[in-house]
């Protein structure tokens, strides 16, 4: 029986699948890699800073 992945494991697998799917083609436009101290946290997402924090990402 296959073990059900935890959400974190599922996310990790999905990230790898996304990277693999991107590889054969030209890199798609994407957000810049965050600096080490600025991960794309779900930061304050229920408020109006959305636009600003999207720029940070």
């Amino acid at each position: 029986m296959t073990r059900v992945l935890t959400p974190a494991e599922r996310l990790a697998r999905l990230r790898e699948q996304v990277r693999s799917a991107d590889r054969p083609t030209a890199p798609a436009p994407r957000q810049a890699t965050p600096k080490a101290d600025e991960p794309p946290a779900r930061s304050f997402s229920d408020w109006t800073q959305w636009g600003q924090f999207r720029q940070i990402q």
Partner: protein
Amino acid sequence: MPTYARHTRLLILQSTTFCNLDCKYCYLPNRDSRKVMVPATAAAAVRNLRESGLLGDRLAVVWHAGEPLTVPLGFYQQAIPSVAEFATEQLTIRQSIQTNGTLLTPAHCELFRQHDVSIGLSLDGPAFLHDAQRVTRSGKTTHAAVMRGLGLLQEYGIEFNVIAVLTDASLDYPDEMYAFFRDAGVRRIGFNIDEAEGINRTSSFRHPDGIDRYRRFMRRMFDLCRQDDRLSVREFDEFAGLLQFDGDIGVNTQAQPLAIINVAADGDFSTFSPELLETPHVSNGGFRLGNVHTDRIGGVRRDLRALALFRDVEDGVEACRRECPYFAMCGGGAPSNKLTENGRLDSTETTYCRYTVQTLADLLMEAHEEHLATAGAS
């Protein structure tokens, strides 16, 4: 020792707590108070951050937490430029205003355009959904006035996004919502949920089948957005960013001391979720930690009362880290929701996070997996 944010990323300026509307789900207290900020307080807040060494290379300044446009235009004609003056080659400052849009005038738009101030517009969708919740103090509907404001923003070319609050009643209408926003020329939207928070002690989402209905709504919205790519949804974009990021998400900025600074009309300041500025907290004597005119914001690192508060919030984050399988997508939850729903900052799961973190993560992972499988098969 709490882990402080190295830099403050978001400064909330509450020019007033007053609001001309009486939305049924509003969680902010003191909406009758006519207390108004003086322009010097805005500059004092940014100067204080600078002198505290808390400014990095960018700062988002948001006028919020009340209806900012009930304050006379003359206030913003002074305050907005006074904040903008702190920008340097090394520091970008972006100002925005979260408004219900009913009081917008061409003069506001002129000012916002001049200083590149963006707008967050509160609009819950078509009139039959919006007007069921967002009404004036005498119970009159507001959709027409908001649409007039939206038209002004478009006429003046002001950058704006929409915040739409979902209630239980909205969840049956993803297609109508999508068509409405698309046809209204909205390009960016975030979907909040009707939260039990602050003085709003209940949520229409505490319905037994709420999770399933929310999941269906958001999934349908995701599919609609994917079809024609004309509406950018905050929740979907954030998750797409998470997929592209390959590291530890860190701590939610709402739960990290000094990442967000909130300043009240009288200059008092707090950190963490902005809602806490107006929230009494018995064991800590309130969330206000000082006043920007008299106290150094960075000084809270040595304030014993603040440290006790920071420890409570951090304990809550650490409990989330230990117990919640979704921590990698969240970073520890919102202290304001924990306090309202659980009565404690050092607690974990809330209804709010079951919806906006757990359910959303599950449905978006499923959607992306399906998309990848389809793309791989074709």
